[in-house]
């Protein structure tokens, strides 16, 4: 299926210029990209560990997808809006969402209740594909407002099979909505490989709905950033939607509940390890003298500090008060909920009395 896509950086860390996507970030930008990816990977690893320790109920690892996420979020401008799926931890961090907010969801303390407006980063959506329609509606609203902004909607390769995603493509196309559809094709939808979801490379899907789609090497942070920036410009300029297929790989399990050894070869995973997104940026940084051992050591220390903060934060996380269940069902008073809240309180109180 049409190769790894648009590439600006080889797995060996060499630059390859691309006529359509010129991109020459300054050394400090490159270092910042590396730092973002490394910190996201560290937080992610901590999520896996915390789940193993019983502190979290579940963790969907982003391992291997750091470039796709960091490159794309770095292409956003203020006021652009993100609609994530459930694995976009690096995108969340890039929008200033505290990693503990993500942990709360996977600890079962809340459903992911960060402030979407404060971060221009919508809540995680677990029903596959649903958010692409919200994103399209939101983008349509932006256009109505005359905002100089765009939406980016994240989803996986498996999600492209859902009717909602096709409907989103079509609504966005018909409405010329300023939206970039960002598909992280990590090759797997749990145990199902791409061949079970699509007959052709996913970026081609866009053509059938009348808008451009390209494949980008999703493990090449430079290419991802350059292509996403161009796609956002396209959307912002009133030319309608754009689909990016970031060709990447889910290095870990689907989630901590999954056992990928049941359905895929170690050799496949190994072959992708050679394309590791951090490694290739490290090679570039070292090759071009843009970073030295001290830099990488410093990033590692920052990563450990962040992980420690996350660990402590998670352990200290209190469960919500049970009455809170009733608090946000409706924005306005609802007699049914009020009645049940009162009954619940009385029931709880009956134990207090007894106890």
């Amino acid at each position, binding site marked *: 299926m049409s190769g790894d896509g648009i590439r600006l950086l080889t797995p060996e860390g060499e630059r390859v210029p691309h006529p359509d996507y010129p991109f020459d970030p300054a050394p400090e930008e490159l270092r910042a990209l590396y730092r973002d990816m490394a910190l996201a990977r560290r937080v992610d690893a901590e999520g896996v560990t915390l789940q193993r320790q019983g502190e979290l109920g579940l963790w969907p690892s982003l391992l291997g997808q750091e470039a796709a996420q960091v490159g794309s979020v770095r292409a956003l401008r203020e006021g652009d809006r993100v609609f994530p799926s459930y694995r976009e931890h690096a995108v969340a961090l890039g929008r200033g969402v505290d990693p503990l907010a993500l942990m709360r969801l996977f600890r079962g303390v*809340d*459903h*992911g*209740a960060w*402030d*979407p*407006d404060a971060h221009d980063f*919508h*809540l995680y*959506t677990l*029903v596959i594909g*649903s958010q*692409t*329609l*919200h*994103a*399209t*509606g*939101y*983008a*349509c*609203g*932006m256009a*109505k*407002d005359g905002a100089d902004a765009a939406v980016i909607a994240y989803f996986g390769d498996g999600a492209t099979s859902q*009717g*909602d995603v096709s*409907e*989103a493509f*079509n*609504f966005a196309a*018909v409405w010329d909505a300023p939206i970039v559809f960002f598909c992280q094709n990590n090759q797997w939808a749990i145990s199902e490989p791409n061949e079970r979801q699509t007959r052709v490379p996913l970026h081609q899907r866009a053509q059938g709905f009348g808008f451009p789609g390209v494949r980008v090497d999703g493990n090449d942070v430079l290419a991802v950033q350059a292509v996403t920036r161009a796609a956002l410009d396209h959307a912002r300029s009133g030319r309608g939607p754009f689909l990016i297929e970031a060709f990447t790989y889910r290095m870990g399990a689907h989630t901590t509940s999954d056992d990928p050894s049941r359905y895929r070869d170690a050799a496949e995973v190994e072959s992708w390890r050679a394309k590791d997104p951090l490694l290739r940026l490290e090679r570039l940084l070292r090759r071009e003298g843009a970073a030295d051992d001290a830099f990488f050591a410093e990033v590692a220390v920052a990563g450990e500090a962040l992980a420690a903060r996350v660990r402590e934060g998670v352990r200290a996380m209190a469960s919500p008060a049970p009455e*809170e269940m009733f*608090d*946000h*069902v*409706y*924005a*306005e008073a*609802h*007699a*049914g*909920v009020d*009645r049940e809240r009162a009954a619940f309180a009385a029931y709880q109180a009956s134990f207090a009395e007894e106890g």
Partner: protein
Amino acid sequence: MAATRMTLVAALNEALRSVLASDPKTLVMGEDVGRLGGVFRVTDGLQKDFGEGRVMDTPLAESGIVGTAIGLALRGYRPIVEIQFDGFVFPGYDQIVTQLAKMHARSRGRVRLPVVIRIPYGGGIGAVEHHSESPEALFAHVAGVRVMSPATPSDAYWMLREAVRCDDPVIFFEPKRRYYDKGEVDVDPAAGERQPPAHTARVVRPGRDLTLAAYGPMVRTCLDAAEVAAEEGHDLEVVDLRSISPVDFATVERSVRRTGRLVVAHEAPVFFGAGAEIAAHVAEHCFYHLSAPVLRVGAYHTPYPPSRLEEEYLPGIDRVLDAVDQALAH
């Protein structure tokens, strides 16, 4: 301004017109709502007056309609969605149940989704399959959406306005076989102040012997049944529930404590229908006041039949009276 006599469709149209005029964030969207004015003409003339940006013909995809309405609401708009017929809401059901209903709770109250989903519902119009259904129970069970249904032009006007003003998602069931019934509607804002909140029930006919509870298209049927019963010497009270989630049980119970008898009527099938919730609740809470079991009148546990059978399928005056007789016989 004095009250005007108008059809239920005209009242809905007036309500939409007034919210579109007063709140620039409101939008009307759906299939054929623009030039055509909707297949029932509820949105007649609105696109002409408010433009294509406010009254939007959407692609033919209910999940897309509800899903993009959610996105528009996230951006600060107040979309009023039209589903063309009851039986066509189901492609949008996932977005309603898993997203629209849950997002406020999911976000711990940060996100509000003031989306109204208007659904012309019910039978009695001689239509083909999927055009005559009453799926309200399938929404009332879902926490996070409000469900209501007006029975008169005046309620249609004021309840729709309140649904649009409400910060919660509202599934607004319009009794399509009453669309062309006429009634007085006082659109004066002062009249609005006098309206009971949409989530409350209303005693539309006081009576002593038995309570008839209904909503939407069946309110008229129950009032007619009460007329007939009156001739036979039975004094029935009729409660228009108006809201199905929440149910205003306080009003129903108050009535039943006086009358001692309750019959609940709706067009939807009885099995797992709204009548079950109302009967179960009232039987529990008015246990010592009931002189007879709560009886339910509704359609059967069958798909909506071909229209030539709908008269037998739908509960009419006779079936309501039959239940009334049974309850009074206890």
